[in-house]
């Protein structure tokens, strides 16, 4: 087989870059199902809220920490921004990639820890899964999101590890980013619906 100037065989089948890599397509389908899942949960909450007798939040139930969670929301959004800039740095092979990805992970971790502390405080105040409609919906919606944040956090850690070993390609980085952007993007909607 003839070689080119670099010594590589050139008689290989012609190919184009795929429109959508398999990993990205798979994650896209998964995120679409997740959007519908969260849409269903939010819809159930909106209907439950509108059906509550005595107004919402129900009387006699602990108040949700609006200001503290606003701060936590800002941390999660900042994590998404840090990941966006990490991707930009990755495209140019910048050494900042690792730093920015690390920052995104740290902010995501902060969100999870803060959320955990908030839950402990609310449980001590008497808001549990079975304490009423507010507690039931709160732990279902926020808990489901928290579970997604934890999974996204693990995916980002895995991505960071691959990056550290110079083994990260963009087709592995994209799906991880998509999932994290989904987790970050859905939270302000939940905050608006559940807390405000």
């Amino acid at each position, binding site marked *: 087989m003839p070689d080119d100037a670099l010594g590589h065989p050139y008689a290989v089948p*012609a190919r184009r*870059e795929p429109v959508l890599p398999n990993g990205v397509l798979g994650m*896209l389908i998964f995120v679409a199902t997740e959007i519908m899942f969260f*849409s269903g949960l939010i819809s159930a909450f909106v*209907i439950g809220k*509108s059906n509550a007798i005595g107004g919402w939040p129900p009387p006699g139930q602990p108040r949700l920490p609006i200001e503290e969670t606003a701060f936590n929301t800002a941390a999660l959004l900042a994590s998404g921004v840090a990941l966006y800039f990490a991707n930009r740095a990755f495209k140019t*092979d910048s050494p900042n990639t690792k730093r920015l990805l690390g920052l995104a992970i740290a902010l995501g971790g902060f969100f999870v820890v803060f959320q955990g502390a908030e839950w402990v405080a609310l449980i001590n105040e008497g808001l549990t899964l079975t304490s009423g409609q507010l507690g039931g919906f709160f732990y279902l919606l926020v808990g489901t999101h928290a579970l997604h944040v934890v999974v996204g956090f693990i995916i980002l850690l895995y991505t960071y590890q691959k990056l550290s070993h110079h*083994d*990260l390609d963009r087709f592995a980085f994209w799906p991880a980013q998509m999932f994290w952007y989904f987790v970050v993007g859905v939270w302000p909607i939940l905050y608006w619906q559940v807390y405000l």
Partner: protein
Amino acid sequence: MRLARASVAAAVVALSWAADLASACPSCASPLEENRQAFVDTTIFLTVVPLLMMGGFIWWLRRKLRAMEGTPEIAVPENLLPDSARFSKER
């Protein structure tokens, strides 16, 4: 054929009344105006979201394919393709 179609259409219309009679439609049965409105809003929301997602994806795919139409297929050795490019000092 025309009769069959008309029968199906009539059956569908008849069923829409049956839902009301059976109180199978929660938004029709609720005495609270806010609750009825919430049912209508969430029905619209859950209908529009998947349509928007699918529509958005098809629009994006069409745009991407049109942009790719101009690019020729080039025979490039596997190890020189950007797919295999790794984030490493060697790149």
